[in-house]
């Protein structure tokens, strides 16, 4: 019987051992409910709204904050969906794309405070936005930051906004993205000298010519009382600080590369609540510390301007800084050489100006600008070449029935067929909402009626536009012919985007994203359409995408 007792005890021990072996935990990710990432978004042209989803050239990226991952939805072929999960780091602070939507940037704060070496550091991760999503770079940061600015030309990123018991708002981290495969990003930490001001906004300029030196790009940091100008060709050099008149805060900075033989590169600074415009000329270096110098010139435009832009009034010259002064229902053209301002009366109180010369391949060399604003139902084409002498006749105005708030450019980095089109959207005064497609070459505007306020998202290939609301309907608008097609899904839509499939050859899929309710939590689903000839009767519905790829 002793043997029996021993064997019973041995069996019990074996059972407990097997139980311990067998009680392996499942992946912890399965216990975490999906919560869509949300962040306040004040950019009315961003179709993502507050949802942290981004449309890229070859994928749609959706943040899964509970798992610290991004779900990259790609399409192996038309109407098919594949999901790739990539880690993004803990506590995502920023989730942005490059201007051309070929890259995704994710700034994470990591574990704060970091008590252990094993606690994750703050990071910047760069992901490929193509049809095969992957992490391109992972830059470890010393401190956590909250904000990320993206260079429109895709060369630089700016990280700022550190948060701690004591933080310096003038501490900036410049990241020069690697060029070519395998090239690593380089970091430059920069602490701006300050006279009490904090950074408000940032402007990356294009290449600006500098007398006696190579042309270079600048980063203009708009602060509460001054500007700090950083030479991106030598980011370690000390910045140039330009004090603003009477401590006025800057509202916007515009730039121009200058015109050979006429005028050097220029910066135009709009000041808050001030009738003066600060015109900064980039001149040759005056000290060994910098490769250039900056000379300010204050010009009164007779009223508070709402927007500035540089324009050319004749082929190869005639550079002027245009300032819109809606209180005077006029524009002022400032000659940067003399500082003299010429008044041009306008048909309406336009508040915004957009130079569109490049978009219409104007051969005369004179600039054409589009005038619009949220205070008027009128838009106008302003031919700068005939402004002198006949200023009023240089403007052709059209009443389009909506107050234009946003002007969308058609992406043209893949195909510039429709680069001469603009999308105008805003609030209409009537019961029917509208947006307009503007043909700049023919100077025609095509009104498109919509039943409700829709969010607009332009295809990265520049061939079509998607308009969607919060219910189950959305529309495709092709530009040639200008033909809208109504499409429907069976669940409410949160986002619509079209992107290239992995098969290439112009094949595309369009994804309508749904965030659904499931047991008090959220779930992700998508309806996939063909991206070039979408048809409501030929779709594929994918549910519970938050489960894809969890390990």
């Amino acid at each position, binding site marked *: 019987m002793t043997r029996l007792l021993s064997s019973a005890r041995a069996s019990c021990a074996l059972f407990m051992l*097997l139980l311990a072996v067998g*009680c392996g935990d499942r992946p912890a*990710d399965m216990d975490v409910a999906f919560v869509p990432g949300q962040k306040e978004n004040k950019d009315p042209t961003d179709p993502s709204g507050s949802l942290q989803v981004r449309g890229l050239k070859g994928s749609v990226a959706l943040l899964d904050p509970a798992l610290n991952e991004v779900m990259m939805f790609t399409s192996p072929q038309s109407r098919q969906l594949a999901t790739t999960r990539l880690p993004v780091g803990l506590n995502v602070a920023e989730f942005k794309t490059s201007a051309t939507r070929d890259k995704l940037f994710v700034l994470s704060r990591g574990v704060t405070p970091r008590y252990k070496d094993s606690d994750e550091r703050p990071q910047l991760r760069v992901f490929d936005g193509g049809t095969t999503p992957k992490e391109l770079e992972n830059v470890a940061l010393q401190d956590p930051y909250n904000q990320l600015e993206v260079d429109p030309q895709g060369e630089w990123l700016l990280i700022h906004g550190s948060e701690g018991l004591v933080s310096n708002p003038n501490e900036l981290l410049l990241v020069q993205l690697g060029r070519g495969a395998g090239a690593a990003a380089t970091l430059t930490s920069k602490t701006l000298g300050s006279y009490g001001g904090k950074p408000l906004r940032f402007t990356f300029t294009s290449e600006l010519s500098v007398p006696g030196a190579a042309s270079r790009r600048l980063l203009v940091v708009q602060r509460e009382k001054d500007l700090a100008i950083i030479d991106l060709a030598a980011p370690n050099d000390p910045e140039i600080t330009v004090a603003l008149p009477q401590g006025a805060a800057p509202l916007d900075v515009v730039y121009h590369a200058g015109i050979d033989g006429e005028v050097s590169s220029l910066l135009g600074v709009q000041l808050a609540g001030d009738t003066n415009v600060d015109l900064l000329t980039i001149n040759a270096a005056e000290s060994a510390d910098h490769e250039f110098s900056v000379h300010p010139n204050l010009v009164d435009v007779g009223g508070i301007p709402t927007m500035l832009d540089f324009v050319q009034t004749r082929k190869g010259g005639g550079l002027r800084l245009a300032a819109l002064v809606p209180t005077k229902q006029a524009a002022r053209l400032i000659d940067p050489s003399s500082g003299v301002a010429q008044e041009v009366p306008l048909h309406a109180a336009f508040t915004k100006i957009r130079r569109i010369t490049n978009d219409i391949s104007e051969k005369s060399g004179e600039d054409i600008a589009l005038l619009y604003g949220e205070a008027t139902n009128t838009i106008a084409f302003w031919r700068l070449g005939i402004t002198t002498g006949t200023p009023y006749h240089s403007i052709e105005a059209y009443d389009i029935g909506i107050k234009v708030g946003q002007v969308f450019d058609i992406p043209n980095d893949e195909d510039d067929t429709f680069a001469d089109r603009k999308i105008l959207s805003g609030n209409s005064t009537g019961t029917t909402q509208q947006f307009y497609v503007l043909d700049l070459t023919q100077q025609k505007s095509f009104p498109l009626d919509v039943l409700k306020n829709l969010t607009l998202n332009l295809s990265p290939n520049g061939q079509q536009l998607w308009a969607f609301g919060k219910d189950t309907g959305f529309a495709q608008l092709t530009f040639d012919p200008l033909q809208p097609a109504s499409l429907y899904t*069976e669940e409410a839509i949160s986002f619509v985007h079209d992107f290239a499939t992995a098969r290439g050859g112009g094949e595309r899929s369009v994804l309508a994203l749904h965030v659904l309710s499931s047991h008090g*939590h959220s779930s992700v689903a998508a309806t996939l359409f063909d991206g070039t000839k979408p048809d409501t009767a030929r779709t594929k*519905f994918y549910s519970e995408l938050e489960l894809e790829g969890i390990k």
Partner: protein
Amino acid sequence: MTRRYWSRLLAPVTCVALMLVSQGAQAKEADAAPAPAPTDDTLGNHQRNLRFEIGARTQFVNSDGLDPFSTNDVLPQLSLGASFAFWTQQKLSLAAVAGFDYGGSSASLRSDKASLDLRRFTLAPEARYHLFRVLALTAKVGPTLTREAAEVSGPLGTVLKTGWKFGVDATAGVAVELWGYASGDSKKPRLWLMGEGGYGWSAPMKLTFQPESPGGVPQRLAPLNLGELSVAGPLFRITAGLSFW
């Protein structure tokens, strides 16, 4: 009582049962006269009988396919069985066994609820060797047929995946007669406690789910795919039984 509760309960219950068996055996050893060495004649109905069993089967399944349905790798089941010992040769006997196991598991799956239901049918020969009159070693290998029903309840309702899968169970264990007349000629029922361990395997099932009611979901719904479930792994079974003749 949830399935998760079952899985937590099984370990201590099984251990307590084994300890009781050993304690019971000890008591019986103290009270009873030494058992005579078993012979074919004395074993009688201790060996040749019809036995009905009820108990618990616990299987440790290491398949990733179980993860959506369970927070651990333990798959508890209610186990029912019947056996008929139809052939004897001295201490050795052979029985035909029919078994039915029922159980499963459920768990939350991110924002969804997932559950797995298993019904296994077994038909196997069991070899028994009586070390003592009240104690026999057992060994069994037999085919199984399992109905596996997985479901996920999500935003579009419930999606299902069911299938019948062939498999095999190979176990060895011990059967202890806890109560019964010593004489092998007695026709009275006898109380048994059986414990066995081994390995169970069922053919893998692809977890591609289809809607429970196709009318209520979006057109051309792509099936939810959660990989593949293979109900395979070490198993334990503890049962109590009554034998008759």
